């Protein structure tokens, strides 16, 4: 169809530069296809993560023309092709090589969140009963594919690098999914306040805007969590918290 120019970040660690590549774009191609084509044609050692090529695994996150995107779900025809297209790694995490970043912090954070602790089974055969409407909300959060694009755009991590004191939107909704799980009996409110830095989120909603799974991170997840923390620690009267544990 047409030759398009790409400016792709090449380098190791902090060192690197944008390099220009040209490749042929045909109907229906996504950015990841173009990257693969360049890799096969002229840059065999270009590092990029991907697995599913269908927006299901969250591996191929990058910034395309400055926008945090899944490369496999970004159609070439949604980008202006008369100018070079810029592709660079996400910014909230240290760079390893080319488009690949060190996201290991995320795996460490998850380990710090207290794990699921169910109430005793409801039925003698060891199973539970839950109504669909009670699990719609946590199911929404469990759609998360761990692409970490929301972490990338959150200014607390991206600009202020407060990785020590803030777990980021991904893990706030991870915690929310646990807290809103109808069977869960754990309490993570104190951790949210003291360890996870929920107070540092000032509800800019940037995370919600980039989420490829369309999870309403802020309104459905973070805000109710904030309310829960307030109720628990600043409003001793209202400790029933019905929205969180509808069955407990």
């Amino acid at each position: 169809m047409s030759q398009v120019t790409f400016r792709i970040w090449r380098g190791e660690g902090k060192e690197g530069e944008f390099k220009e590549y040209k490749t042929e774009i045909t109907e229906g191609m996504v950015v990841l296809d173009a990257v693969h084509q360049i890799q096969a044609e002229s840059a065999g050692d270009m590092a990029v993560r991907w697995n599913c090529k269908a927006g299901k695994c969250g591996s191929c996150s990058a910034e395309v023309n400055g926008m945090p995107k899944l490369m496999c779900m970004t159609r070439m025809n949604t980008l202006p092709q008369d100018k070079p297209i810029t592709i660079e790694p996400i910014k909230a995490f240290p760079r390893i090589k080319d488009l690949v970043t060190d996201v290991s912090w995320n795996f460490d954070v998850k380990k710090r969140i207290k794990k699921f602790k169910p109430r005793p089974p409801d039925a003698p055969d060891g199973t539970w009963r839950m109504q669909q409407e009670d699990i719609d909300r946590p199911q929404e959060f469990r759609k998360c594919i761990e692409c970490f694009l929301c972490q990338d755009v959150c200014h607390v991590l991206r600009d202020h690098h407060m990785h020590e004191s803030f777990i980021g939107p991904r893990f706030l909704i991870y915690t929310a999914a646990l807290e809103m799980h109808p069977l869960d009996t754990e309490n993570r409110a104190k951790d949210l306040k003291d360890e996870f830095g929920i107070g540092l989120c000032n509800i800019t909603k940037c995370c919600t805007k980039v989420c490829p799974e369309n999870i309403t991170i802020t309104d459905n997840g973070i805000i109710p969590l904030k309310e829960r923390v307030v109720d628990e620690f600043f409003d001793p009267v209202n400790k029933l918290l019905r929205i969180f544990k509808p069955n407990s």
Partner: protein
Amino acid sequence: MSDFTTHEHDVLVIGAGGAGLRAAIEAAASGVKVGLVCKSLLGKAHTVMAEGGAAAAMGNVDDRDSWKVHFADTMRGGQYLNNPRMAQLHAQEAPERVKELEAWGALFDRTKDGRILQRNFGGHRYPRLAHVGDRTGLEMIRVLQDHGIHQGIDVHMEVTVTKLLLDGGRIAGAFAYDRERGRFRVFKCKAIVIATGGIGRAYEITSNSWEYTGDGQTLAYDAGAELLDMEFVQFHPTGMIWPPSVRGILVTEGVRGEGGVLKNKAGERFMFKDIPENYKNQTADNPEEGWRYTQGDKNARRPPELLTRDHVARCIQREVREGRGSPHGGAFLDIAWIKEKIPGAKEHIKKKLPSMYHQFKQLADIDITETPMEVGPTTHYIMGGVKVDGDTQMSKVPGLFAAGEAAAGLHGANRLGGNSLSDLLVFGKRAGQFAAEFAKKNGNVKVDEAQVSAAAKQALEPFDRQGGENPYTVQQDLQKMMQKLVGIVRQEEEMKQAMGELEKLKARAAKVGAFGNREYNPGWHTALDLRNLLTVSEAITRAAIERKESRGGHFRDDYPNKDAAAAKFNLVIWKGDGGAQQMRREARADIPADLKQIIDDEAKATEVK
């Protein structure tokens, strides 16, 4: 000798998909030291892509279901080449394994009375698939991952194993490189579980990711284990076919389970034209009955769209070949039509099939609630793999276990949809349990330095060949060749030609080069993967030539019918002393009388209907 880091575990699990995670969890629970390695990040393995669900006869939706029916369905689907013991254990244990996920935090969709909801799928007599919309694999891998990280398992991400190490015929460890730095790792261990998934990258059109290069099958084969049923590759009937760049991406069978129908360009529901004899009694003979089935009418029989995958794929191929295909060489899959039947169909579709809706909207500019999808067969799964003991999952090599897609036996000639996710749970657990037992019972092993040096040397060879051929080109040529000559419809002449081509490709693969340095270098990794792809491609082709009949996933133009004599053997492949591939026919395991009885009773029950 080249530099490397050594890790010591009792049990090493290779692969962090459903099977690997479940194995690691089980082994760790029994108190041994467990290491887990995977080529990608945790949570990104293939299992994450599974859509439709996990089959388990819980009987939550239809209480006529039981392990016996599930067992009989699995055997019928596999055309009786399955290992009956595995099919039995799978059917019996799957419900426990699925419920256990709930205890670890999984949130499956619910029935009205609050239990786990189950959906219809091809070849399953009753609604049997526990699911979460069309993202069941994501739920499953996440719950195993999130449970697993608290079990004290050592996880080594983005680490690729290239060789297994032996100590006098027994497993002693594995040799690997890490992607990030390109450095070598040696894992010393008493038992290994191979859970590396499939081989889809041997074909041009596939639903599989870059990881699926037949590593585990090849690692085991090189170490002296046997491969079984390699001729049986599953081509899923519904992959995307347009635009070209998305060709092969899966369209879940769930679309048909929810009432989607297949049509040719004339608008004809061609699946009604050809219903195999052994499914006639359980298949609807008119559209109205088929629709009622998808809506849960217990007295209706399933629509022909939900026949087994091998059959549906060939029917689509026939329509295309005979000039009745869709514009881009496939068939139309229509779910939008259900608006004639139910109010609020648009929202219903979006709720039941959200990721399909999303996938078509974003990648093909098609709104599936309005317009039919264009679909065609795509390489999806391999029924064959490492030959293991049905109870313990141990291969011929002491201490070497295999589970999940990398292992063979459960599915026979054709896998039923949903039987993989449950396979991962049932046999992942068993492999983990028996690997841990093996490690406890057997003494220490020694890692042989000569084996390590040889593995290191082999891994670095592509760098010694600066200016060698581009590994991507060889990979692409192999994929095109396999697609064309050993694909969904096979013939003797073409496959013999393929054997010749494979020799040429092997010679080329031995000369590919890698440039750049060792840090995160996909060109180098592709060069290393080639050997594995070639080994499994050869095994597939060799077995496919030998099986002179059509059965399940294996279809031959020159032998279009089943041959009763061929129903009596499985094909086993191993590495001969000189390094050349060997093959033998092995008499199929006898089906014990009690299980035979179940199969007969089930056959009768469907006849009465």
